[in-house]
């Protein structure tokens, strides 16, 4: 959970950089729209996006459960899948943060270590990639909402993601960001933590839901589906009207699907127009 030593963002100089989308297992299974929105943003930023077919999960559940053997094997598989691209980008600070931890799984004299270091230097979470590497600017659009942003722990503390999503939200003229209290306090998800210690986890997500509700917005956004499903699941159980979405859904104007755990979609704008991007 330390700041990744491989985090050295430099501006992209390639035309049409080749980007491997690291889909993440949660986006793949639970919320494909998040992955499609990520592709849309990357393409708008001028990237050529490819999706390596042999990717599955980053291996974090095994890593944090103490199964170092399987973590290493999953890491090797993921490294092989993601080799040969200019960048690797995914819609999760937690999963990309895990890729940044791969080097410590291997002996420093091994070839795997070298490969892992190379991957870590290429791997970015989507909002930081758009802002720090691609200098991407969103074109004006008419989505109108008051939103609050939850800083997911891994993105914030491993990958320094704090300013980038806010910078992107600030480029949307009709989006008002209202910061909640303790935006950077853990929501209580913690992977298997929320299953192993449900009562503690519940109190943590209750606290988060209270702060999110108190910010009096329509939409809660964040950069990690684990945290978002936890918060959305709590808010819906409580009967709150607050909606929860991954930030890329908002940024890419991919709002056709109902928010997480919602039966119906709520329109966040008066009239629909096509979104145009400036690269």
């Amino acid at each position, binding site marked *: 959970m330390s700041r990744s030593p491989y985090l050295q963002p430099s501006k992209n100089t390639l035309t049409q950089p080749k980007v491997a989308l690291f889909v993440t297992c949660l986006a793949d299974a639970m919320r494909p729209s998040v992955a499609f929105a990520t592709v849309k943003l990357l393409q708008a930023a001028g990237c050529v996006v490819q999706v390596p077919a042999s990717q599955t999960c980053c291996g974090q559940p095994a890593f944090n459960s103490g199964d170092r053997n399987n973590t290493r094997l999953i890491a090797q598989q993921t490294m092989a899948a993601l080799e040969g691209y200019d960048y690797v980008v995914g819609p999760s600070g937690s999963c990309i943060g895990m890729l940044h931890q791969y080097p410590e799984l291997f002996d420093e004299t091994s070839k795997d270590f070298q490969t892992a270091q190379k991957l870590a230097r290429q791997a970015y979470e989507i909002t930081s990639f758009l802002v720090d590497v691609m200098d991407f600017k969103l074109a004006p659009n008419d989505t109108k909402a008051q939103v609050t942003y939850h800083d997911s722990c891994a993105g914030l503390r491993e990958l320094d993601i704090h300013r980038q999503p806010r910078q992107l939200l600030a480029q949307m003229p009709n989006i008002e960001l209202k910061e909640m209290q303790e935006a950077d306090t853990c929501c209580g998800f913690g992977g298997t933590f929320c299953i192993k210690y449900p009562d503690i*986890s519940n*109190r943590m997500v209750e606290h988060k839901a209270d702060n999110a509700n108190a910010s009096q917005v329509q939409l809660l956004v964040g950069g990690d589906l684990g945290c978002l499903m936890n918060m959305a*699941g709590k808010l819906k159980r409580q009967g709150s009207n607050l909606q929860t979405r991954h930030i890329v859904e908002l940024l890419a104007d991919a709002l056709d699907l109902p928010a997480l755990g919602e039966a119906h979609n709520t329109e966040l704008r008066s009239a629909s127009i096509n979104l145009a991007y400036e690269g």
Partner: protein
Amino acid sequence: MDINSPDFIARSKSALNDANLQTALQNLKAGFPSKRRKAMERMPEFDAMRDQAVVIKDKVIENLDFYLETFENKVHASGGHVHWAQTSDEACQTIVDICRSVNAKTVTKGKSMVTEEINLNEFLEKHNITPIETDLGEYILQLRGDHPSHIIAPAIHLNLPQVSDIFAEKHNLPRKEDPAELMQEARDIMRDHFIAADVGITGANFFVAETGSTMIVTNEGNGDLTQTLPKVHIVVTSIEKCVPTLEDLSLFMRLLSRSATGQESAVYNTLSSGPRQTGDQDGPEQFHVVLVDNGRSDMVGDEQQDMLRCIRCSACMNHCPVYSQIGGHAYGWVYPGPMGSVLTPKMIGIDQAGHLPNASTFCGKCEAVCPVRIPLPKLMRTWRERQFEQNLGSAANRWGIRFWSAMVKRPKLYHAMTRFTMPLMKLWAGKKNRLHSLPIGRGWTLWRDLPAPEGKTFMQQWQAQTKQPKQHTDKEMQP
């Protein structure tokens, strides 16, 4: 102190339902972290100081034998004694022997977590020596037969009426509700103890190899009276609290009080450098330092060595979202919060303390605020790895992870499985688009719904798009 860590789940549940405790924890959370943050804002060189502190502590730990022997020689030169204790029992026995050598009946004690760790009070009582805690918080706990729930604010779990009650009961005086009056009552009683005590026992926040000095940092002044009034002063401390020089000490003092309470400096920072010398107006006739190992030297050179940098400031627990929900007693032994979740398994065994390193979301706030940059989540993970290797903890979790890994390592099978199960989940969720219960993972749906999946997986949809006729796309794998 009894080991209650195996009951972590039950203890944390009752903590979550303890209204008094929850109020106390809210106050703690509102207090220390914001005071710390303000102190840091006034000290832009904080990060540079942390880096320097890491270098110094690592140097001490890697040359521990040299620094400890230097310290020992200096203490001897000033007329004091150093005692080496490998275990808790050895430490307690050494202390009892010193007390007996001066026929001590009562000893006053300054606040010391190491004496909690070695269970000193119980040992003294067993040998008919009465220990009297002189730190106000510790004194309240002693009256109640209670134990600290926080390493620097030991009675943080109690409220004012609970203090009023126990004072009235144990002091046999009219019940008081005004904090100032309660404090005066404690002071009056404590004054007699200070004067009557045969031996004074304190801990040490640091000790200095260069000068053979020990140091205590307090806000009440009780430690000073404990160590200067009796004829014998015993310092009980652990081997990793060594710093090389007085100049190094000043760095750690700046880091400690700001990280702990947000104070620029604690109220009393007192160095003890041996017994009373000719010409000194006060001070003890005997000065003893008991250096406790209790498993620490095993950590030198192993993957948890970084833990030995800890200066016991409590910033990790003050900022921990888990500690701030359940408090210190839930952890079931002496050291709570993130630092305790690394240290406790070392001292009482991972079989006893198995829950502790698991009851963390690895949110990383502890590491972010640690003044000596201890990678606490990483160290907790090493315990999880040792548990996994030794087949400790929940077998269901272990097999669950093995099964899941087996799937993840077979991409084709994995994608086929998600393609198959996600539509079923969506179907089961129905119109509400969320699940209220699950056959597995009941921990999730106990307290929250599970948003339903969309149905088709991303990989499935992406592959369908890329398989469209060639004329629709000019790049492979491009929709």
